[in-house]
């Protein structure tokens, strides 16, 4: 076989052309990787919001907590189930919560966006170990006090500590800021559930969340409550619940990304093809000599194909390098499952790296295969004469 260094050094010799072509591919890979990172970030943020040992109980057929209603009596029945773990204080590790959407204005603009206001119980924080109070204190029971997620405090008017938000015909003072550990809780406002139910005139809870005493007991619990005629409830592991919430948006982003990059990649592949055609045209004499010396057509094909694959890989590596900086960016968008604003970061995973590199190599292959075939099919005498 022709040495690999032949293919690589030829790219290095034509540094400018290589950079320009690889640059085009890098941009496509950048877009490709960024969109996948966006979908992954959204998914990760929502999935990390849940805990695998927690169970969320909502009304049967309700897609999310926002659409759900769990009556007080029903919540009581759930609370009495043997699968519910006990807290250190001897009370069930369970929280009956209310979730409502409220429209607030973003800082620096009059543009409103929906945020989740969650009424919490005294075990809500214990059920979410990833949530930490970073400033101030938790609301006192019975007081019109709230704590805001760090993303809310940063991006919404009145969300900072000491500031006041008005909803439910009351003024609510922000007494603390919590960090949701890059989960969906960062984009929520928490307050006492009883106060919020009164303020929003809600007679029912939205959901009941509890910790399983035994992680494998979910099926048993699920079967019992779903067959209980008094209840019309659906129980899911919290991780599954949030994963389902991210599904539609993540799929939409992925389809959008693939469609966009497919169109962009056509341009990059044509660029690679032009570069490789030029490479073949400039090295007709070399091809003739290599064939004359005894290298088979398939060796020539492999050498030029390898060059195109290297080109793709360089573009892929550069695009991925650029895309990795997107991890520093946090964006917010509407989560169409809950109709609330959700902030999340671009997340780069090894899977995205591999997918992006495969994508770039495929671009290199498609761009390089026809010129490589042309090189391999070249007549030796003609090639030597043209050199």
């Amino acid at each position, binding site marked *: 076989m022709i040495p690999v260094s032949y293919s690589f050094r030829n790219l290095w010799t034509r540094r400018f052309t290589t950079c320009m072509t690889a640059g085009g591919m890098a941009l496509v890979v950048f877009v490709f990787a960024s969109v996948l990172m966006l979908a992954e970030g959204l998914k990760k943020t929502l999935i990390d919001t849940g805990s695998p040992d927690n169970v969320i109980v909502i009304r049967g057929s309700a897609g999310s907590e926002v659409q759900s209603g769990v009556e007080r009596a029903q919540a009581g029945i759930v609370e009495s189930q043997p699968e519910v773990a006990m807290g250190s204080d001897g009370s069930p590790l369970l929280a009956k919560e209310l979730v409502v959407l409220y429209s607030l204005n973003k800082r620096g603009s009059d543009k409103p966006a929906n945020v989740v206001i969650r009424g919490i119980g005294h075990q809500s924080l214990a059920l979410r170990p990833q949530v930490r109070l970073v400033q101030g204190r938790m609301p006192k029971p019975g007081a019109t006090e709230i704590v805001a997620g760090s993303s809310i405090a940063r991006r919404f008017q009145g969300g900072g500590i000491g500031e006041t938000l008005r909803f439910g015909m009351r003024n609510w003072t922000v007494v603390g800021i919590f960090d949701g550990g890059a989960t969906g809780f960062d984009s929520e406002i928490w307050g006492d559930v009883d106060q919020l139910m009164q303020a929003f005139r809600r007679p029912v809870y939205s959901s009941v969340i509890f910790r399983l005493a035994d992680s494998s007991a979910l099926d048993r619990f699920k079967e019992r409550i779903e067959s209980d005629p008094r209840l019309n409830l659906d129980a899911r592991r919290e991780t599954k619940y949030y994963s389902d919430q991210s599904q539609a948006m993540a799929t939409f982003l992925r389809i959008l990304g693939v469609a966009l990059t497919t169109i962009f990649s056509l341009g990059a592949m044509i660029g690679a093809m032009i570069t490789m055609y030029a490479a073949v045209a400039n090295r007709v004499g070399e091809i003739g*000599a290599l064939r004359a010396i005894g290298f088979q057509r398939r060796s020539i094909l492999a050498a030029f194909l390898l060059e195109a694959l290297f080109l793709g890989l360089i573009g892929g590596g550069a695009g991925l390098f650029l895309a990795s900086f997107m991890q520093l960016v946090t964006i917010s968008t509407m989560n169409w499952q809950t109709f609330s604003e959700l902030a999340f970061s671009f997340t780069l995973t090894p899977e995205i790296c591999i997918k992006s590199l495969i994508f770039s190599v495929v671009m290199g292959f498609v761009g390089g295969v026809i010129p490589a075939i042309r090189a391999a099919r070249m007549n030796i005498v003609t090639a030597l004469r043209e050199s």
Partner: protein
Amino acid sequence: MTDAEALSTPSPIVRLRNVSKSYRRGGQIVPVLEEISFDIAEGEFLALMGPSGSGKSTLLNLIAGIDSVDNGAIMVGGVDITTLSESELAAWRGLNVGFIFQFYNLIPVLTAFENVELPLLLTRLSRKERREHVALALRIVGLDDRMDHRPGQLSGGQQQRVAIARAVVSDPTILVADEPTGDLDRKAAEEILHLMDRLNRESGKTIIMVTHDPRAAEKARTIRHLEKGFLNDVPS
């Protein structure tokens, strides 16, 4: 020829029998070689001369197995190369033919060492054996101190010497040279011809050279003239 004369004559390494070749140009068939038959003895240094278009390069290409005949047979080292498939022919060339081109045709991105090593990549030699062969070939052409230089860092004469090292490194059956001094100044040309002469006399290499240059042809032991596709002489 008596039996004694026949025994003392070196056996032919190349045999051409009724070789014809034509090209199609603009819908017309142009004959280039017509019914050529002759032998080249082992250890011969043959110069093929003739005006442009006489068919000498075509004849060289046919003997080297990079072009195909229309009719006739070419035996090289006992193998009728006209019956080989393209893939077999490529493998055969790798083992049996060393090429010296007018414009050297070295790979610019590879060093002198790597250029000379190329034909050996087609063999089963180990890396160490290849290294030894390449070092020897570069020593023969007097460039063992330039093995890490790329073609662009060498003069024309030096590049042609690298090309000769590449041609001989696999110890092929025949060396074919197409105008090997055509791109060189007189001094460099003299050096190349001297080197080819040495390879022929000292190592017994069979060399077939196409040239326009009478001074180059003088170095050959036999000169054959081609004109309009025919051999029009007796070997001199």
